[in-house]
């Protein structure tokens, strides 16, 4: 039996090369990709599919799952808290974008050679280094009624203090302001590295042609900063959509749920002390994923286009 097998292989070898030899070029890339694909499938694709699957069930995380079909989604679209969260997410997206121009402005301001500029740069970068939890705590003390700096300032200016975090009209803006502080620092550092790579000869040439100030910035500097701007926009959009820690630290979604965002609402429903509606939480996650997908596909589309040089 062994003998016949060897003769069979020996027989084919004379006529055609082995399967591996024939398909080496096609197979090798897949083999190299395999570890990455396996990890990606296990830790990214599987959880996404599992969440979607879970969103059709009623499950408290302990007992048996009950199939609900689309009921979670039906309930979600009739849930005021969901719309509050969605609305807040939109406010976050829009206002968080301010971090990009603000970061650019700070970067331009710091892009000069003065003694000790490194110290100033690191001071400006500092808020990004400290944890979001600390940022949240600092700002909640800043806004705190009776002893907060901001509260006392407003009281001194207008006569009555405003407890930002207790007022459903201002609370989301108050949290976004806290979030902007580190985000501006982040965008600033992206632009600072970008500014290092701006070609000096082009600036020289533009200066000879009489470009100055605003015109110089708009036509010469900014086009060269396009990669930095792209990254800054991407991280800011993602940051706005996944804003969770600040909401959790500063207000816990309150007062009466008016500062919730989708990611926080998902956590509240699925994992918090009073939650454990895994299915409903998963349904919120799916919606959040869909919103993120819109942006992510946009970014990928742009990246692919750039790579092809279109």
């Amino acid at each position, binding site marked *: 039996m062994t003998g016949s097998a060897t003769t069979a292989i020996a027989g084919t070898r004379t006529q055609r090369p082995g399967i591996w030899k024939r398909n080496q070029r096609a197979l090798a890339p897949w083999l190299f990709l395999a570890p990455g694909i396996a990890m990606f499938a296990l830790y990214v694709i599987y959880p996404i599919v599992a969440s979607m699957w879970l969103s059709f069930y009623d499950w408290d995380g*302990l*007992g048996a799952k009950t199939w609900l079909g689309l009921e979670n989604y039906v309930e979600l679209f009739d849930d005021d808290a969901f719309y509050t969260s969605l609305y807040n997410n939109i406010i976050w997206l829009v206002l968080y974008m301010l971090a990009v121009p603000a970061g650019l402005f700070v970067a331009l301001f710091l892009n000069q050679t003065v003694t000790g500029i490194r110290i100033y740069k690191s001071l400006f970068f500092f808020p990004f280094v400290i944890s979001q939890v600390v940022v949240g705590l600092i700002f909640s003390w800043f*806004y705190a*009624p*009776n002893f907060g700096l901001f509260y006392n300032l407003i009281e001194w200016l207008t006569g009555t203090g405003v407890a930002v975090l207790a007022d459903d009209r201002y609370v989301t803006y108050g949290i976004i302001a806290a979030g902007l502080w580190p985000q501006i620092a982040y965008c600033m550092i992206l632009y600072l590295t970008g500014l290092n790579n701006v070609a000096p000869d082009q600036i020289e040439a533009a200066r000879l042609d009489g470009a100055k100030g605003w015109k110089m910035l708009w036509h010469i500097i900014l086009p060269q900063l396009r990669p930095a701007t792209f990254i800054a926009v991407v991280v800011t959009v993602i940051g706005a959509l996944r804003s969770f820690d600040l909401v959790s630290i500063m207000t*816990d979604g*309150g*007062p*009466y749920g008016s500062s919730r965002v989708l990611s926080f609402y998902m956590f509240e429903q699925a994992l918090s*002390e009073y939650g454990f509606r895994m299915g409903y939480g998963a349904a919120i996650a799916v919606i959040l994923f869909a919103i993120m997908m819109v942006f992510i596909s946009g970014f990928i589309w742009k990246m692919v286009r750039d790579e092809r040089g279109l």
Partner: protein
Amino acid sequence: MKLSRKSVLLGTAAFALMATQAMAEKRTLKYYADFDPAPLAAFEAAIAEFEAANPDIDVVLQNFDHEGYKTAIRNFLSADSPDLANWYAGNRMAPFVNAGQFMDITDVWTENNLGETLASAKGSMTIDGKQWGVPYTYYQWGIYYNKDAYKQAGVEVPTTWAQFIDNCAKFKEAGIDCVTTGTKALWPGAGIFDYMNLRTNGYDFHMDLTAGKVAWTDDKVKNTFAEWAKLVEPGYVTANHAALDWQDAASLLIQGKAANYVMGNFAVAVFKDGGMTNDTLGFMQFPEITPGLARGEEAPTDTIHIPSGAKNVDDAKKFLAFIATADVQTKLNEALGQLPINNQSKVGDDPFLQAGFEMLSTADGGIAQFFDRDAPAEMAKVGMEGFQEFMVKPENVDKILERLEKARQRIYK
């Protein structure tokens, strides 16, 4: 090959034998808990006493952070179960009981005659006619007040709701918040609601409401909120309470900027840390609203349970029987500064504990656990958000009640 496998087997057997021998000398009892520092010390003393009485048992206490524990318990009950775990009475333990994660310990109750000695908590430990844990402490809720603030406004301690509201007007004139609270963490507001509802509609109605048997849009609930509005609409409650933690509000009471605080007895330690003494801090039961109602009170009960995955069930039951004894509960609660459940225990000399004991033992209506323990978790969350909103925007009351009713119809299906 065969030989080596045999020797491996022999080796394992020998090792297992050694291990069981070691265990026979000292059996471990794994106990997961969520104590604050003072209760932790008290429990360590009780455990030392238990170990002295049972030298063959080694109790290993793993203490968790209070808030973290509430999430952790769900993981460790199914993954790596201890032999004993802390939790709470009433509806709060229902999810674990219904999921079969707590052990039925009715035998501990019958063998040790706990039905008699722990009678006041038996109802809240019973689901489906069986007992699922042993309570070791509870504490009263009520109104803590600043006596100096009362003097400053020149008013007497009220006994009826009408007097209370009249006082509030005078406190407002004197620039003092009549009632303070900090609802950032939501639950302090629920304490006020519970008492408003207990006093307006009585214990039985309150229990029906938290059990989901009555609509939130019921006229009786509306009456409760109408009484509550007498406090909220004229601005007698501390402004910006939604941004305050309960300790922040406690300091308002300590500073005399607020007169009354609806709170649990654990707050006494905070008041006294802030410099209040038995001469400046007062306690009263929540005033009567509807005359002639049987008086219900609020006293959350802390409990210990045996998880279904426990490995050392016999010793765990021994420990529970030990914790239930009058003597142990006396000592524990002296250190905890709370009230023992065992009716043969002695209550500490502290005037607030004495007052609480007197109030609870004469409560003819019944003893509620607290809104977030009586109502299921989801309802508690929606409800407490509603209470907070009501205390900021009382004009939204109809909208809030409709929202709660919608939640009730979904949650109690």
